[in-house]
């Protein structure tokens, strides 16, 4: 099996990352925003794996495991906050939940 060149890995990661950023900017539903964040973080993880493969080191994959753990922690707290907001406002629309101004 031929090795996948670094550029392909980074390109794929870059596309995924951009999709995540677009989702973050366009979506108004908090759940979808959290999903977009997840895509961005995993794109960065993929870039680490691709980079690690280029140098033949495990470091990239180690970093990916850390990113997975951290993303899970983040989403756990994110969903807890989303639940609280939904209980108060009966909506998941981030614009409707925006009160702080100035």
């Amino acid at each position: 099996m031929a090795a996948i060149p670094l550029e392909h890995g980074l390109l794929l990661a870059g596309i995924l990352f951009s999709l995540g950023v677009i989702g973050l900017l366009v979506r108004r539903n908090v759940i979808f925003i959290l999903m977009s964040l997840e895509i961005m973080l995993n794109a960065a993880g993929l870039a680490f794996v691709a980079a690690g493969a280029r140098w033949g080191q495990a470091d990239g994959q180690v970093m990916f495991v850390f990113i997975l753990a951290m993303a899970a922690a983040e989403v756990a707290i994110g969903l807890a906050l989303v639940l609280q907001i939904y209980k108060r406002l009966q909506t998941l629309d981030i614009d409707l939940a925006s009160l702080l101004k100035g």
Partner: protein
Amino acid sequence: MDIEYQALWPVIIVAITSIVVLLQAAITRRHAVALGLTIVGLIAAFIAVIGVGPLLPQSVGVLLVMDGFAQFFMGLIIAAAIVTAVLGYAYLRRRNEQREEFYIVLLLATLGSMVLTAASHFVTFFLGLEILSVSLYVMIAYLTEELAALEAGVKYLILAAASSAFLLFGMALIYAEFGTMQFGPLADALAAAEDLSTPIVLVATALMLVGIGFKLAIVPFHVWTPDVYTGAPAPVTAFVASVSKSAVFALLLRYFFVTDGYQFDTVMIALAVIAIASMLIGNILALIQENVKRILAYSSIAHLGYMLVAFIAGGDRALEAVAYYLIVYSLAVLGSFGIISLISPEGRERMSLEDFRGLFWQRPRLAIIFTILLLSLAGIPVTAGFVGKFYLVLAGVAAAHWVLVVVLAIASLIGIYYYFRIMAVMYARRDTPAASTPTVSLSGATLLGLLAAATIYLGVYPDQLLLLIRRLVLTL
């Protein structure tokens, strides 16, 4: 125990303390006990920071390096965490939340910040930052009864996670290009590289700049600051403004000094633009605010801009100036948000300018303390803020960054206006009888008095602290 790990005692003690407080909350819920354990743990960690001195500098594996620089910033962070814990106690006592968990996340956030100051590898950089951020999400949204706190928490979470993703992608690209994630070897790889302006390196640096810029809340990555500062409980705001920024700034200093980030001209130009924008926009937007927390939020954006001026100048003088200013700034913001948390009754916080009208006639001591802290933020002589700003300007002048220095001077002048506006309101008489203020906690008030005294002391006798900074920080 290996000598390597002995140097890590401060970090280990804070980690153990967080577990002890966690177990205590599981067995019996006592607010005062949780505070006591936290304070004891933090003081033990502070003693350990001083105690590990003879072992330093000591690198711990490839991930962390304990040196005078880390020692200095760990000391600052632990001291600020103690202040936050005491303020948090006075604040939470009046509220019906589950209170003990606050100290657990506070200790974890402190742990993350301490890891950041000693990080010498992308892994510890990332881990420290995330331990700090994830704890901060909880702290900011801690009062789940209040919609504003929830909103601030969600906003911070979304933006912080996005900025972490940017930072990680930048790190991944650097790793892909140079094959190492350790600061030292990365410096060698950068020095050996023929061409540093390849697209990958440029994109990577830009992405990392976005990530760090967000954490420091500098323009144009500052939008979250006023909302989060307003929505979060006042003691948490104090923590975000002092500890999390000091830790990230410490990391930025170490990263730039070790890998010689100063060789990237584009980065330095970008930083100069960011510094100018932060100083001007921060101060100008602060002028039109009617809410004291928002004024302080915008002013903190400007203060980070001031520090960037010295940072851009580079060299030992910059290290000294930034380290000194971080202390001064932390004293002032901890104290200012401390005042807000002490005078706020149950429920809504007192934070609009009107709430401060006539504070002097009701609570003369608190008003005087607040005045001293505001004078320090404005950089008026006899306060520490003046000495701090003087060193920042000196660093800028020594490096002949005239534009930056001039903007700093103009921005400071604008700043004086809104600091005096708060003071004028405090000393004015109110027409209507004031709403009753809650009894101010004695420990909290004493602590704020100490902060104000330290601000004056450092403004009159800055020598000792400067000597300490020279001895510790310049080991970088």
